[in-house]
């Protein structure tokens, strides 16, 4: 799990052009949207692309997005659950 989290943080920085951030700036449990990294709706779309491009995963139910994209931890949980 720690490997996925570290990889995800690096991928998020690259995919979302968070040039001023380092992996250490992204707290695993902190919200990605709103107060946390302050991501916006375009970033949400980029995260969907990231999931599909890097992990071959799609959200079956769009309504799950809010939960899946809540934090790096929830994203990692989702990726882990799909590996099983």
């Amino acid at each position: 799990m720690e490997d996925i989290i570290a990889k995800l943080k690096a991928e998020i920085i690259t995919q979302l052009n968070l040039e001023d951030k380092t992996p250490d700036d992204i707290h695993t449990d902190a919200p990605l949207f709103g107060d946390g990294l302050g991501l916006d709706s375009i970033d949400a779309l980029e995260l969907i692309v990231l999931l599909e491009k890097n992990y071959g995963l799609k959200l079956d139910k769009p309504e799950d997005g809010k939960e899946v994209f809540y934090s790096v931890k929830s994203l990692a949980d989702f990726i882990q659950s799909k590996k099983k």
Partner: protein
Amino acid sequence: MGTENLHITSWVMVRNGVAVQNDSLFLEMTDTDPLSFIKALYKQIKCDYPKFYKMDNLCKLAFISAELLLKNVKLIYGSDEIAVVLSNSSSSFDTDKTYYQSVGDKSNYFPSPAVFVYTLPNIMMGEICIRHQFLGENAFFISEVFNSGILSDYTENLLNSGKAKCVITGWVEINESGWDAALFLIERTAKENEEKRLSKEHLNEIYALKRITK
């Protein structure tokens, strides 16, 4: 009404590793690439706006030029009284190419929403307006070369018709020759001297950088 009381109260030029603000050299790094220079300018200005890094090149150039233009300016107008009128020659072609390349491989087809949103040149006005909360009129013109006549006439019309009390106008272009931005702040004021009066000749003179004092 003519342009008697309409004046160029501030201007900036960002071009070829040089940033000039109101007759004075603000930053010069002629041995670096345009993107590195714009990032250096961002740090020099000390603006804390993380979204800057997400913008495409054209928006970065427009955004940082507007930051420099407004750096020491206190605008006394309502949000809906400030208009932005920009122009260039190559539209958003720089990012259009990037997007086109990203969708060229059908076996690896992952269009980037973050790139796609910048495939319009008027987005740079949106970025400036979001940053400064400007809600006035926006207009964008495409012309082969810097066309001071269009910018001067349109700005004059906005100010004299009462649709705006202040206009940020200028040129923000990226092409094979390089990056080139020239922004002007136009306000109605009786205080300025004749050489700052809004006219296509004065815009041309500044654009040609005939007024730099190092």
